[in-house]
């Protein structure tokens, strides 16, 4: 009896240590799937990038070409044009999507009849595959049998069909319409969550002071929203620079590279097109540059946001 007691007494601290080590082992094992995914899917490809920066690599054979990929980049007008288009696309997308999302979020907070249903509808495009919705818009924009031209002709707005995706004057706008359609619900939800965090009594006191709808919006809602607004803008900027999936389906960068954005250009270098072979080493250099460009834009934005803070 006393012997068993002694045994458990001896065992007790040992079991405690065991529990500790077993918890450590459990920690490692439980983190394993996430860490494995992180290493393989995120870290490994990023490091791989640097391996071919000085090489000409077509997927089969690679040659050391020194700094050639870098000098080529500086003379590559198609790439710099795609960088220009990326900025054009991103800026225009943000100019349209952010105010629209904010207006819709503000309307949602007015508790108008049907708000719940509208919220579900506005958010719906974000649920659908970008590739599929881009293809559907491809049908809508089609030059000969597209419904957009049919509607515009029926209402007398145009007399001749417009080749929305094939004309360099309209292609970028067509791409932007798809982007705004597919994304405004996303930012609306962000803004709604920002608006709901503004305390209600602020609005009440504004009402007592006789502030109208617009005054309240610009003097109270916007400033109170500002911290959240900055985060949302940041998300919007990084997302807008990344987009290329829908452009790939809609125009493949055409017509005449008019909608060619940098990540699509890089994709075509990486995997080749029907007429060109992969140029992987060069694509690695360009994607590093693209990542740096996005990084600089984000950095500048954060700096600007801080400056605005000081002013306001």
């Amino acid at each position, binding site marked *: 009896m006393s012997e068993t007691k002694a045994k458990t007494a001896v065992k007790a601290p040992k079991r405690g240590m065991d529990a500790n080590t077993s918890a450590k082992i*459990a*920690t490692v094992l*439980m*983190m394993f*799937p996430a860490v494995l*995914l*992180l290493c*393989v*899917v*995120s870290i*490994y*490809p*990023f490091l791989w*990038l640097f391996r071919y920066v000085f090489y000409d690599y077509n997927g089969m054979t690679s040659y050391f070409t020194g700094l050639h990929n870098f000098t080529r980049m500086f003379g590559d007008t198609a790439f710099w044009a795609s960088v220009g288009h990326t900025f054009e696309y991103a800026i225009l997308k943000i100019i349209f999507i952010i105010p629209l999302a904010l*207006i819709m979020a503000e309307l949602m907070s*007015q508790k*108008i*009849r049907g708000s719940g249903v*509208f*919220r579900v*509808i506005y*958010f*719906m495009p974000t*649920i659908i*595959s970008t*590739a*599929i919705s881009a*293809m*559907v818009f491809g*049908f809508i924009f*089609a030059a*000969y049998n597209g419904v957009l*031209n*049919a*509607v515009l002709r*029926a209402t007398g707005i145009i007399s001749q069909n417009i080749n929305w995706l094939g004309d360099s004057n309209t292609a970028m706008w067509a791409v932007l319409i798809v982007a705004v*359609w597919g994304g405004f*619900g996303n930012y609306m*939800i*962000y803004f709604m*969550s920002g608006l709901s965090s503004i305390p209600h009594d602020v609005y009440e006191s504004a009402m007592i002071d006789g502030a*109208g*709808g617009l005054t309240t*919006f610009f003097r109270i809602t916007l400033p109170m929203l500002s911290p*959240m607004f900055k985060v*949302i803008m940041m*998300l919007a900027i*990084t997302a807008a620079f*990344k987009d290329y*999936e829908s452009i790939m389906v809609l125009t493949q960068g055409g017509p005449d590279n008019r909608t060619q954005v940098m*990540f699509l250009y*890089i*994709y075509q270098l*990486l995997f080749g097109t029907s007429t060109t072979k992969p140029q*992987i080493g060069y*694509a*690695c250099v360009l*994607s590093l540059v*693209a*990542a740096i460009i996005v990084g600089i834009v984000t950095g500048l934005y954060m700096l600007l946001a801080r400056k605005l803070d000081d002013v306001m």
Partner: protein
Amino acid sequence: MFKKESSGEVMSTSTHVARFILFLFMLIVALLTLYPVLYVVFGSFKENGELLIGGINMFPKVWIVDNFIEAWQKADFSVYTINSVIIAVGVMILSLISSGMAGYVLSRRNFKGKKLIYGLLMAFMFINVGSVSLRPLFELAISLHLNTSLFSVIFISAGTAQATYIFLVDSYMKTLPKELDEAATIDGCTFFQVYIHIILPLLRPILATVALLSFRGGWNEYILPLVFTMTDQAKRPLTVGVTMLKNSGDGAAAWNIMFAGATIAIIPILLIYIVASKYFIEGLTGGAVKG
């Protein structure tokens, strides 16, 4: 819209009118948002001749289901659909396993390298090298002989999105009192048993969100399976199969098949969304802004 608001400001008696105008505005935006989806869904019941002529009619002159039958039987859409389901379910299961456990461990334990893991997860949400990461992963898959299996697509899709889900679970964990773990530990539960018996049931709401978001992510994946199934048609999901049709020469005229295919790709995820829209919307604000 600003005009409308200011008219409400001038006369409070006309508030009802103002609100009605706002309602109309919201209705128009809603109809514009819905239109492309309705257009393709109703269009998929049209005859190809009607689609090729065009016109402004949303509803078919003659309702037919042949497009679906043709797409399903002749254009391999049954295979594409099965592949889409495999990818979506696979991504969902892997995401639930990895994010549930990682979120729990990260919020409850201190260990060496924890900050590093946090930092890397966060950094790779922002560092973006675009499609470049697909190339090494593609070559890795080839060398492991996994390039023709949907497993690589599932693995990569889950890996790309996991940070968001981990942060969702991590921030949800903060709402669960630590006393629960402590009580269970005193009762003799190991660290892992606490997770299985105590935490997992409580994580159900947030894991439902993770499940839906990751299922959607897998279902909608496009460029990744496009790259991995470039030479293997039998492994293509719907997104790739349908859009490939558009680019192929003889498919360009087969609008009816493409409409049916797009509808097959849209409807399942749309139904899930209609039933569970709350989780999708809450998942967005819970993860990206707060987390």
